[in-house]
């Protein structure tokens, strides 16, 4: 493994949390919510609008072999692809912290962050009605994994608006899966999408009890 940033580590240039981004020592546990959607659908915008810290990025590198691409020519050349995931944080209380991960919609990248969805409270599937089909794969994967999710329609100004039931039919969703509009740029709107997910999770918990 190549520690490419060893120079950074030893030179004293290491960045850390800004003073206002430091968690209290009492922070005892964290929970996570995953925001998932296609490229350019507004995941990073949503993470940034509600996060109390400047959104951070974690990167993983994969080779072609990891992507599952067959090389027709038997070449041994491998191309490394760097896949980034942005995330943010919301302090719920002195003890509890919520992390939000904006995850690439392409399911083939999800394994890079092993356990990303395991234990997650749930997911917000962010969609753009101009490119609804990029969310199909994501929704299927969440259903298979049993991760509860809501649909948040990022309300781009020039995107067509459809009746909720038409969207539900197109996305082939169960009737209880919430569908809400949001403007990922607005803090309150993104917060409300997260609250919709939490209320949905709460209703599921009540139904199981």
């Amino acid at each position, binding site marked *: 493994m190549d*520690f490419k940033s*060893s120079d*950074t*580590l030893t030179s004293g240039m*290491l960045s*850390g*949390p800004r003073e206002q981004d430091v968690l209290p*020592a009492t*922070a*005892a546990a*964290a*929970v*996570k919510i995953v925001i998932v959607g296609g490229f350019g659908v507004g995941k990073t915008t949503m993470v940034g609008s*509600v996060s109390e810290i400047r959104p951070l990025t974690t*990167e*993983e590198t994969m080779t072609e072999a990891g992507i599952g691409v067959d090389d027709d020519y038997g070449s041994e050349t491998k191309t490394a692809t760097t896949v980034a995931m942005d*995330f943010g*944080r919301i302090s*719920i*209380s002195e003890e*509890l*912290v*919520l*992390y939000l*991960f904006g995850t690439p919609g392409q399911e*083939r990248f999800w*394994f890079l962050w*092993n356990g990303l969805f395991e*234990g*997650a*409270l749930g997911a917000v599937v962010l969609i753009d009605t101009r490119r609804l*089909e990029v969310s*199909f794969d994501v*929704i299927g*994967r969440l*259903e298979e994994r049993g991760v509860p999710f809501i649909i948040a329609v990022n*309300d781009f100004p*020039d*995107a*067509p*608006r459809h*009746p*909720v039931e038409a*969207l539900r039919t197109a996305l*082939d969703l169960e*009737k209880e899966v*919430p*569908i*809400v*509009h949001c403007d990922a740029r*607005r803090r309150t709107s993104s917060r*409300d999408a997260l*609250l919709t997910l*939490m209320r949905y*999770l*709460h209703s599921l*918990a*009540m139904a*199981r*009890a």
Partner: protein
Amino acid sequence: MTHPQDPSLDSYDSLDPLDAFTAPDSLDDVHDPRFQAEVPVKRARRGPENPERLYILTGEDSERAPLDLVTLIVAKGEPSPTAQPEHSAVLRLCRTPLSVAELSAYLVLPVSVVTVVLTELLAADLVQARAPLVRSALPDRSLLEAVMHGLQKL
């Protein structure tokens, strides 16, 4: 670029978070010029004829601690002068709790690499790992309610 205020969004502010969830149905605005009654695409559910691709992972790597992206790491002491740079960097960053994901971002190292470093530090008893609270099969309404109340304060 102005955005019309959608009353269905802000009405959530006044809702009791513990009210039974009801899916909003007020999104259909037939007077909106962008309104289209038909959705031109349709998702096909995966069936047996359309099996998901499987990625065979190596499972629990015995050489790595079971750390989640949101496991909080706290240093137990100061780095020794002879410590490896990666170890020193983690110990300096973790004077206050920091998640594995944040460590990865600040160190500019992949989570997989950070996990290896943390495994060594855990084995040497130099850091403490605070495990995340995860969604389990059993309902934990108090956890969900705590998150809801925290979000409402935003």
